């Protein structure tokens, strides 16, 4: 065998190799055949006599082995001379001679400071943690389930340093976005979320907005969207690893730039079949609602002071004491209920195992009529045939969401969403009165305000309109591994991920929309996503003296296709039939969309280590992507990482029991989105007998190059006091260059958005994880983890003269999400603010007095998009604790955030409508404008009193009107609504009692526990609005709209009770 690995082996022919393999195979077979075998049984326990479930038991020198069952029991065929190697993650492996004993009791010592911990790394390769030159965070199923969320992304909040989670909203079925170590791409439509890999197959986590504002009136901010990782049943997850840096993820090449989340699902274990049933019921409620003033009623005052009452604005006179007030906001939301039921069956034999699960998650939302219902099935099976191991995973899920319009959903079509109206409905109007006896919409100003100029009652929207989204998803993979020898194996894999989303949007006749759509409007969107991947991979592993080496080579192909269809139409001819069949042909429209993306990758990894002391790993990958121009489609991604376990050189000491420093460097990247290399044209228009066609406003670029991210990180892991205290530290730096973007640029180019390679994004930050076990008694233990991280994201060099990079079209209130070139915030915000007085050179004086425009009598505004905030937090932290006393355990997770600006667009809207409590200043009797005259620079102070009138630039304004104008002017200043938000959240608390002790005397039930859980029960924050975690239009690509709170569905808190039964 050694000859094969000699240098000369490079030259050996295929024939020789095959011969050698055959010889090897023969030797192996003869070894096993010669033994005098009998069946040995044994039990593996830890020093406190608890069984070590799943411990691996193998015969030294052979490939035969087994695993202990949940009670630590195993059986194995062995001869007396054999030596068993018994190991388990977290314990020091132990060698036991079989001898003549037929029943062995083996006690495993907990691994000193968990030195032997194994983690799942790129491509699913398991490695010892100490060998890694980069940071990997992993979470066990238990850790994830402590605050189980049907969206696994949400379960990560506060648990992994460097990971930032943003919930889209508190609506049923709402998604969340995850970014690791900051975003790398600014453009909308460019992902900053990590790759999700489940059982070795890339699993799509898009948040698909199937419609668009033009064809069916929906964009991200208009309703609720799920991120597709929600299709997985969190109960199926066995482990989850977060590969944060580029080096960790480098083997994924062009898909590695944003990190990777690797999920391994549960497998059956050898032994009797086990059935696990768990049921949970929970209730959720709006965490925090906006507060509306109840002092002043509807109305507004004209310039000359005349009260206009034909308005929903609340600038009118004081509400008389005997009026009925309606808590429209508070009454609108309901308590949501979730029924969450799971069942799984698993088991196995020596050569095979299976895991079968089913689940149903049925949630009603806090908005009446909304819900999210998810059903999942999974089958995982494994079968061994000698050296060949076959795995198959199949999962099927159905997820249905009943949702509502949250904000106006019809571009150019008028109308409004439920949330915008809820937060603006005057307190003296009973919002629940929304329908007339004849079924038409009850309108306060019917007959005086045209329907298209009116506002839809939120109850009309939730009861009459119909918006649903249904997704069926099938994923599966077949994986074959052939262990050629004990140092060489070959793996082949085929993976498939397919889903179909059907979105349905119906705007009921009689809605307050453009006249065109007042007889109803319907749209249906179909999105079919298909992903097929094949992988071939081979591993070599060999030890030479003190050197341990491994080599892995592989290749992969990926084929991703999406097919979209949109049908829409308006004006139902016969009332009551909601169908395209009931729409005249000229009012029906149909479009198709297809995207195709293919990728071929070839990769390799070589690693060498010396005496558990030094580890070095190099990887390389070459990708060929279909999305880039032919000449630029091939690109290479290298990485290098190493670790040095310096405690190996020190004398054993009780204080520092383990110490390692690590470092890595990597270059990864991203390819383009499909079709970015050509400029496409619009649909034809017909004018008389002529047909016109012209270019779209997005310019293609035939010279695109791949985006390149270069990054490095250094860090260390330290275990103190025999592992009772652990510290993991990382500092990282990454720079993404040749960013592929579609920025808004000078329209003089002929296009609004131009595909280009431009600009760099720089992220640097730090991650610290402190783990401790302050108390470790037999009956009482306390485990705690504190993690802390910060990231500083900056947009680097960009095209000269470009002042802003707007990732999306969206403007919320007066602010826009923006990245600022040349070292500015990646998660910036531009807006409008009051101008301050200027110095001699015409520059604004920081903190100078405000300029007042004498022509309006109000503060002068800087509307040239000044930068008004940075949405990136100063740091985020999580403090997770588990206290166990006998069979009772209590876990709680605190989520901490310091800094990061949030724009309170909901409050902005309340101010505009006169419902904000802020507008009660001076009982609305006066407002004062004070600063300097913008023309003369002289002092300017003017108080506007409600009952006086003022002549400004030739017009006479009543005081009441001026007070309204003052607040409108106030609302324009973005800074009036921006807070640098700190929070401390009790993210989750759960109390579990394990009844296993009571079940000792029977054989049927193996485990029973009950859990009470609360999530988001308390939030301490300086933010005055709703829960600051909400993001308007969450999940946009690029720098997105996190940190913008605008008329969203409030985030929720919940309480749950669940039982878990195993038999």
């Amino acid at each position, binding site marked *: 065998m050694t000859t094969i690995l000699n240098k000369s082996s490079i030259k050996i022919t295929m024939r020789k190799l*095959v011969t050698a393999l055959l010889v090897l195979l023969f030797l192996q077979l003869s070894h096993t055949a010669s033994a005098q075998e009998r069946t040995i049984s044994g039990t593996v326990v830890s020093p406190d006599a608890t069984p070590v479930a799943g411990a691996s038991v193998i015969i030294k020198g052979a490939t035969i082995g087994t695993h202990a069952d949940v009670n630590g029991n195993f059986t194995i065929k062995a001869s007396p001379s054999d030596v068993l190697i018994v190991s388990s993650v977290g314990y020091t492996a132990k060698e036991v001679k079989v001898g003549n004993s037929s029943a062995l009791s083996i006690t495993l010592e907990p691994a000193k400071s968990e030195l032997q911990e194994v983690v799942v790394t790129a491509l699913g390769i398991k490695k010892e943690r100490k060998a890694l030159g980069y940071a990997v965070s992993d979470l066990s199923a238990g850790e994830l389930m402590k605050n189980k969320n049907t969206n696994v992304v949400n379960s990560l909040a506060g648990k992994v340093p460097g990971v930032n989670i943003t919930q889209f909203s508190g609506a049923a079925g709402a998604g969340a976005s995850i970014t690791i170590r900051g975003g790398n791409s600014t453009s909308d439509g460019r992902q900053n979320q990590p790759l999700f890999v489940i059982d070795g197959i890339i699993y799509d986590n898009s948040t698909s907005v199937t419609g668009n504002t*033009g064809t069916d009136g929906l964009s991200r901010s208009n309703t609720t969207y799920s991120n597709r990782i929600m299709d997985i049943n969190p109960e199926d997850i066995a482990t989850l690893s977060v590969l944060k840096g580029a080096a960790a993820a480098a083997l994924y090449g062009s898909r590695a730039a944003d990190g990777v989340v690797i999920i391994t699902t549960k497998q059956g274990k050898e032994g009797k079949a086990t059935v696990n049933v768990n049921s949970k019921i929970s209730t959720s409620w709006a965490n925090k609602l906006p507060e509306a003033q109840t002092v002043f009623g509807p109305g507004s005052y*004209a*310039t*000359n002071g*005349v*009260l206009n*009452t*034909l308005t929903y604005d609340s600038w009118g006179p004081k509400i008389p004491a005997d009026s009925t007030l309606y808590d429209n906001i508070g009454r609108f939301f309901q308590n949501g209920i979730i029924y969450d039921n799971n069942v799984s069956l698993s088991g196995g034999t020596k050569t095979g195992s299976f895991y079968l699960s089913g689940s149903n998650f049925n949630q009603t939302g806090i908005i009446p009529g909304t819900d999210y219902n998810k059903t999942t099935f999974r089958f995982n099976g494994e079968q061994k045939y000698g050296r060949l191991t076959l795995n198959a995973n199949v999962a099927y899920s159905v997820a249905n969401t009943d949702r509502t319009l949250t904000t106006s959903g019809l571009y150019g079509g008028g109308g409004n969403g439920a949330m915008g109206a809820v937060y603006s409905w005057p307190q003296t109007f009973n919002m629940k009165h929304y329908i007339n006896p004849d079924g038409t919409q009850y309108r306060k100003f019917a*007959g*005086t305000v045209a*329907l298209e100029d009116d506002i839809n009652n939120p109850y009309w929207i939730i009861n009459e309109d119909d918006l649903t989204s249904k997704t069926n998803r099938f994923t599966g993979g077949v994986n074959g591994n052939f262990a050629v020898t004990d140092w060489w194996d070959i793996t082949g894999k085929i993976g498939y991920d397919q889903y179909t989303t059907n979105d349905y949007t119906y705007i009921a006749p009689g809605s307050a929309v453009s006249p*065109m759509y007042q007889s109803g409007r319907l749209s249906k969107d179909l999105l079919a996503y298909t992903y097929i991947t094949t992988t071939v991979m081979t591993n070599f592993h060999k030890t030479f003296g003190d050197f341990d080496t491994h080599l892995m080579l592989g290749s992969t192909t990926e084929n991703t296709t999406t097919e979209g269809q949109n049908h829409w139409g308006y004006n139902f001819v016969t009332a009551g039939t909601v169908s395209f069949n009931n729409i005249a042909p000229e*009012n029906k429209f149909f479009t*198709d969309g297809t*995207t195709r*993306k*293919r990728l*071929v990758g070839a990769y390799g990894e070589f690693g060498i280590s010396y005496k558990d002391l030094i580890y070095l790993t190099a990887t390389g990958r070459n990708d060929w*992507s*279909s999305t880039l121009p*032919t000449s630029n489609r091939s690109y290479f991604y290298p990485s290098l990482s190493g670790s040095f376990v310096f405690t190996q050189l020190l004398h054993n000491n009780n204080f520092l029991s383990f110490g390692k420093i690590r470092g890595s460097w990597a270059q990864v990247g991203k390819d383009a989105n499909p*079709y970015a290399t*050509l*400029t*496409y*044209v619009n649909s034809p*228009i*017909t*004018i*008389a007998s002529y*047909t*016109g*066609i*012209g*270019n779209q406003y997005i*310019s*293609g670029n035939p010279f695109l190059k791949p985006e390149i991210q270069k990054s490095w990180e250094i860090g260390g892991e330290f275990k103190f006091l025999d592992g009772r205290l652990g510290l993991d530290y990382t500092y990282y730096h990454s720079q993404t260059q040749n960013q592929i973007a579609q*920025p*808004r*640029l*000078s*329209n*003089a*180019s*002929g*296009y609004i958005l*131009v595909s*280009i390679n*431009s600009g760099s994004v720089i992220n640097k930050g730090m991650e610290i994880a402190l783990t401790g076990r302050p108390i470790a008694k037999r009956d009482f233990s306390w485990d705690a983890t504190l993690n802390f991280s910060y990231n500083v994201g900056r947009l680097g060099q960009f*095209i000269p*003269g*470009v*002042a*802003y990079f707007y990732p999306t079209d969206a403007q919320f209130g007066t602010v826009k999400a923006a990245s600022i070139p040349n070292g500015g915030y990646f998660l910036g915000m531009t807006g409008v603010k009051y101008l301050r007085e200027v110095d001699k050179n015409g520059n604004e004086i920081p903190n100078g007095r405000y300029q007042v425009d004498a*022509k309006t009598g109000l503060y002068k505004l800087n509307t*040239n*998009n000044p930068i008004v905030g940075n949405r990136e937090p100063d740091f985020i932290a999580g403090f997770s604790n588990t206290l166990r006393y006998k069979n009772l355990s209590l876990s709680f997770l605190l989520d901490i955030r310091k800094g990061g600006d949030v724009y309170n667009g909901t409050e902005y809207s309340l101010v505009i409508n006169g419902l904000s409590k802020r507008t009660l200043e001076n009982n609305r009797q006066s407002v004062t404008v004070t600063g300097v005259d913008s023309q003369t620079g002289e002092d300017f102070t003017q108080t506007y009193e409600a009952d006086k009138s003022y002549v400004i630039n030739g*017009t006479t*304004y009543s005081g009441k009107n001026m007070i309204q104008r003052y607040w409108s002017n106030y609302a324009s200043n973005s800074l009036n609504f921006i807070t640098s938000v700190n929070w401390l959240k009790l993210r989750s608390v759960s109390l579990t009692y394990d009844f296993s002790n009571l079940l000792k005397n029977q054989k049927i039930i193996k485990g029973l526990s009950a859990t009470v859980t609360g999530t988001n029960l308390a939030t301490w924050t300086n933010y005055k609005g709703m829960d600051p975690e909400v993001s308007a239009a969450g999940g946009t690509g690029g720098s997105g709209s996190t940190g913008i709170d605008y008329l969203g569905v409030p985030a929720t808190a919940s309480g749950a009770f669940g039982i878990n039964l195993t038999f």
Partner: protein
Amino acid sequence: MKNIKYIVAGCILITIVSCKKWLDVNTDPDNPNSTSVLVQNRLPWIQHFYTYTAGVTNFRTSCQAGVLYSITGSANALSTTWTASSGNVTPYQTFFVEVSANINDMYKSAEAKGAYYYMAAADVFSALGFMQMLDLYGEMPYSQTTAISGISLPSPKYDDGKTIYYGCMAKLDEAISLFNKTQDPGAPSFASGDMWNNGDVSKWIKFCYGLKARYMLKLSKKADLFNADSVLYCISQGPQSNADNVFQRGYNNSTVTDYLLGDPVVTNGNWDYAGYGSNQRISQYYYNLLTNMRDSKVTDPRMSKIVPASMTDIKLDASGKVVSYSWNRSVGVDSYGASERLVAGGPASIKAVSYTASDKNITYTITDGTAKAKFIADQQLAGRAFTVDGDNVTVTYKAGSIYVNDNNYLYAGDTSYVNMRTFSIATGGEDPLDVDWYPSADAMKAGAVGSTGSYQIRPVSDQEILTYHEMCFIKAEVYMRKGDLANAYTAYRQGIQAHLDMMQAKLTEWQAEGYTKTNPDMAPMNQSDINAYLSSDAVCQDAGSLTMSDIMLQKYVAMGVSLENYNDMRRFDFSAGDIGSFGTVYPGYDRGPLFAGEALYTGGTPKDPRYWQRRWQLPTTLELNYNSANALAVNAHATEPNVWSMPVWWDCATDDQYYGYLK
């Protein structure tokens, strides 16, 4: 095992060979791309969207020129307060994105087929578009734009006004020479893609010369460059009668809207901006020219075709249909005079009207005694029932009334300012032959017309690109400048006659098509009114007394909603009266009492060039935020507010003056 070896080797080979092909999937199968579109499909697109960009330019510059009054914030800032800080975006975006991006692609694909007329048309649109950009913004990216260079650059450099001007003139010269060629065999026929002139090349050549005349006239302030005889030569080669007029026909036969801004694609571009919504009204300045030209007190026969009317004194029958009514002809909004109504309510305070199908009472609270007395008198005059209770006056609007639905007495009389809105079937109209605007669905059912609209800005109006009457007025002006009063007078009368003829032809056509069933303002004028007008004091009757103001004001009336009025006014320094010996050419046009634009218009007196609206600032959100380095490289003051009063190149007497501003 041998087999495995071959299989593996074979697979690798197949992989390498098939890999390239397998990856070639980056062309969208659902959408054609810019290289595959036919030229005969490009041209209608360019023609349509050019009229669309010209429509918004015409609308906004008409607000600046005093033709229109608008309550839209951005347009009101041009028409009334002169505080313009925005409202300068759409012409820029619609030209560059919807027109310019297609010019080079059309030129190249036409060249490949020897389709010279399409190449020529590409040149014409380059000239039309960039000259419009120059007129508005002064300096723009030009030579580095995709349209001119064929290369798409993300941040194209700027050129100064002079370079753009000569570039446009060169494009017209190239177009003329291309139109004089014969297309290669196999080239697509010009008629198949030309909506404007149905492929009539001789008309295109006249069009090019007409544009050259229009552009040469821009140089009238430049002693060294203005050449009257060159202008006259171009006019002699340009349109010779109304038959040579170039226009885009507007239709009302489709509800399809465009991809970018969502406006109907078949309608008139001026309508899309000026007549689409309820925000525009006729200005008193324009109204006065139509009712009292040359202090004649004579009403122009075109007045009722241009000034909209609404129904009033409506009586309904038992089924709620209008049985009798009279027409309420709009008055103009006084922005430059005393502006009493605007001063009282604010510059953009004119209210929209509503319709009531049943009797409607509104109680007005009027504490001011004088105002109350006047209000009551107005009600009596209008014949409305009302009751008075202290400060409260309750007025009954009878069923069928078009009224202002507001309890503020200040706005009650705003029905006299009829808005200029008309319906298309894409925007609320139901009958393609009824373009009247109705204030509500009930009003439409009853037949209660809220506005009859205005000649140039209905969805079915012809959008004038270049007309014979403009040529006549240019000729009159040039002869006037040459001191040839006789020829100037002839051309002046020809211009008025040509415009009346053009209008009458269109009105006759509308009548034949059936529009007049619901809209009397679309019916032809009375010939006797025309004759009376032409012989009245409203029109100069002898060459000897002809003034430049006579010519330019008649041109102003005829051009109406057109950028050329704003261009002409700049050439004559508005009402400063400091051009040659022509005196005040646009008397009465001035800053109004609601003027608030001191920061933009820094000149202190009318004779100071910086007193007036001279150009538009570059759009912040589309250009300055992304290309400021290049903008500032050409004009150091591009981002300063008073760039609004900086003359563009052709508006300066000398290059020194122009470059002095840019420094």
